[in-house]
């Protein structure tokens, strides 16, 4: 058998390494099993081809204009910069953060390809070679061996395999690092524990930390903006306070409850940090938290200080130093407020960044306890601190497991126990829990909306999740039956929102989405009007 694209093709001059075709993509369940039910694929615009990297698959994740080398000298300079970055990835001072896991994954992959069938992107694309989890890893591995190891220099391609490092390789590899959601399902099945997701993560770091190259929504408009103005959404402390007032008014209007949301209250038990995207796109989520925490008598506060009101930490996807900088700001805010612990709201990557990955960055006075909102919510429901009537949630509900919170943190049951308690028609997706599929918005994809990247996300990255959702609701797929996908994560919600919009699934299938706390408040007996609006 021969395939259209092999490893060494990454360095071959061509307009585009592969081209996606709708008919090759993974088939979807009814009603999307018929032709014409989903929008077609589009071609990249010609002007994009001149300014950005379309040489991989025609889609653009890195939305910084790229001046392609005009001569051999410029190309050689690019190659040298790349190799400098690669050396730093393998250096203990520059990459102490992930040196050991990276080197293990570079050195010991047996190329058995056991991981492939675990990858939702590879499967959804119709098994396009470049999306195979081992493809980008093998490209990087070959470059490392050929150019940086004594064995590669002595024995050549006998040990390194065939690869050439030129600007095509570098440019395509930069884009290819953003064709993996870092969900790490592939690592779960690897007999050796090799982590192809980590390799994608490290390639992103190489480009960001050595060359300053990363998608703008992650870097310039993400971590940099967050550190400068307080939030990756550009929400300022003043804007945040205005929104809190709006949310208080909205709670009053929708529930009749007079709730004063605590902001900057020193000495509270909990500093609750939400993804600031919630305040702008889904204010009902922080509103629901406020209602629940106040009714349950929790000692808590929000922060209006710079970065303190935005839990996101995009650094976890592409840049370790940016990760450290934001994590430091989060704990600094908590320290000033003298809280006992930081609790992260419904945001998966913020959970992982602050509770897990940054755990080994924070020392001394910065080492403040950090945990998830999920066990607290379950505790409130379990101890019946709220008067809940499950009948108010008597519609089909399924649960999406955010990878960062579930597979990468092991928070599996609290959210399920809540749903079993308050949603009579709760049903699981398959597979679920730690074996779930990514929403397709992971690792920054949900917020990367430049040019045609959303099309790739909707067609390829979220396709498996869409299939899962449709399958979970096949018994009630008629649009007249309102259904709810519970996604307790802001980025997942963003990806699911765009997916439902792209496939017009709310209109065609009656599928809605939202968080977990909204369902809890929706079940509260003393709130007369439905808190969740499905119309």
């Amino acid at each position, binding site marked *: *058998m021969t395939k259209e694209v092999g490893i060494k093709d990454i360095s071959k001059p061509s307009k585009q390494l592969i081209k996606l075709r709708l008919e090759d993509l993974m088939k979807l369940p009814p009603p999307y099993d018929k032709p014409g039910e989903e929008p077609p694929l589009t071609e990249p615009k010609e002007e994009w081809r001149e300014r950005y990297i379309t040489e991989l698959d025609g889609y653009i994740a890195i939305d*910084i204009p790229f*001046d392609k*080398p005009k001569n051999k000298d410029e*190309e050689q300079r690019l190659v040298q910069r790349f190799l400098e*970055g690669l050396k*730093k990835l393998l250096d203990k*001072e*520059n990459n*102490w953060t*992930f*040196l*050991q896991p990276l080197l*293990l*994954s570079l050195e*010991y992959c*047996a*190329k*058995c*390809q*056991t991981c492939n*069938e*675990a990858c939702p992107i590879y499967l959804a694309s119709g098994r396009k070679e470049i999306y195979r989890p*081992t493809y980008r890893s093998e490209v990087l591995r070959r470059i490392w061996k050929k150019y940086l190891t004594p064995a590669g220099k002595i024995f050549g*391609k006998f*040990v390194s*395999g065939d690869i050439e490092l030129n*600007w095509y390789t570098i440019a395509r590899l930069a884009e290819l690092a953003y064709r993996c959601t870092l969900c*790490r399902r592939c690592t779960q*099945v690897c*007999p*050796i*524990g090799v982590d192809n997701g*980590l390799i994608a993560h490290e390639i992103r770091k190489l480009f960001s*930390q050595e*060359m*300053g190259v990363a998608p703008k929504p992650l870097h310039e408009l993400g971590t940099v903006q967050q*550190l*400068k103005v307080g939030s990756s959404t550009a929400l300022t402390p003043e804007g945040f306070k205005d929104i809190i007032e709006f949310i208080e008014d909205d709670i009053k209007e929708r529930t009749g409850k007079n709730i004063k949301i605590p902001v900057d209250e020193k000495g509270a038990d909990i500093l609750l940090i939400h993804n600031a995207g919630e305040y702008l796109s889904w204010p009902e989520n922080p509103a629901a938290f406020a209602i629940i925490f106040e009714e349950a008598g929790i000692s808590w506060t929000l922060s209006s200080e710079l970065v303190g009101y935005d839990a996101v930490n995009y650094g976890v996807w592409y840049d370790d*130093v940016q990760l450290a*900088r934001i*994590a*430091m700001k989060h704990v600094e805010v908590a320290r000033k407020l003298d809280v006992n*612990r930081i609790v992260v709201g419904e945001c998966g990557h913020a959970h992982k960044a602050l509770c897990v990955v940054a755990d*080994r*960055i*924070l020392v*001394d006075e910065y080492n403040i*306890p950090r*945990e998830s909102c999920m*066990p607290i919510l379950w505790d409130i429901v379990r101890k019946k601190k709220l008067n809940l009537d499950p009948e108010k949630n008597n519609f089909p509900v399924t649960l999406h497991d955010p990878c960062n919170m*579930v*597979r*990468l*943190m*092991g*928070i*599996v*049951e609290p959210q399920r126990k809540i749903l079993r308690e308050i949603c009579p028609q709760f049903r699981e997706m398959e597979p679920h829990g*730690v074996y779930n599929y990514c929403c397709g918005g992971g690792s920054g994809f949900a917020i990367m909306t430049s040019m045609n990247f959303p099309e790739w996300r909707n067609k390829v990255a979220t396709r498996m999740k869409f299939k899962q959702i449709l399958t979970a609701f096949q018994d009630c797929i008629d649009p007249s039956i309102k259904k709810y996908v519970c996604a307790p994560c802001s980025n997942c919600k963003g990806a699911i929102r765009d997916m439902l919009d792209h496939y017009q699934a709310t209109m065609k299938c009656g599928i809605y989405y939202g968080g977990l706390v909204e369902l809890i408040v929706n079940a509260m007996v003393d709130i007369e009007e439905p808190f969740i609006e499905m119309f």
Partner: protein
Amino acid sequence: MLNALQISSYVSFAIFVIVVLWKFIKYATMPIHLRWELYPVPHEPEHEHGGSFFEYQNIWKLERKHDKMNELKEMLEEMLFIKRMFQNKRDLWVVSWPFHAGIYLILVWMALLFVRALLVLAGVQSLLPIADALIMITGAIGVIAATLGCLGLLAKRVGSWELREYSAGVEVFNLLFALVVLLTGLFAWIKFDPNFDIAKEYMLSLVSFGSYPMPPLPKPILIHLILLELLFVYIPFTKLAHYIGKYYTFHKVLWEDEINKPGSEVEKKVRRCLQFRVGWSAPHFAGRTWAEEAINPKLDVIERWKP
């Protein structure tokens, strides 16, 4: 008096042990890395559903409990049966498992030869029949299984596009080398040493440092022995020694979930790493230590990506 062949046997074994140890030490002495665990983590009491201590409140005050038995079970299932490949890549497992299981049996066979030699030196004759029987079983099954598995792996590596395309020449060579050693061993066993008597005597001569004479070796056995010694020297330098990587990936990355508690060893290690200098060249760094870079960010960005 030891001859050149016996000395080379000691040397090859010593090189094997030293290089494997060096590789273990290389990984063991790397800086502590950021936490990167992946669930299910088998030592978690809630491992049945893939849960962790994060499912509870006030985790910093909780006394962590570890299900060491389950971790051992998971580890043995993976080591002995290659569970993940069995579940996810059955067509490769049917050749990979016999190869690995055969190698394990051959290693047990070697260990038994060693123990038998000690028994002879200690004059414990009564246990020799049991040792001989076990040597026969492990040696025979081991070499047959490993040879068949190796043949199958080689066929897959060369015949399957997805394996061949991703393999460098050395990966095929590794299997070929192992196959040649196994085939010469198989031939030597069947044709010249069906009861492993020569193997036993040779091991005795090694264990006794030459007090017991080395048996006369037919040429095929001599060739096999030399190749086996070369393989021993070769393995630790190659990916054939992936057991080293497997130990670290599972125990020190995927299942490593130790919390950085104030005053802990972890915190001390992290504090040291934060004093490393950030040597990355992107415009948002100023060449200071990790701690300084984290506390006082420089936030320059590039407008265009230029070569």
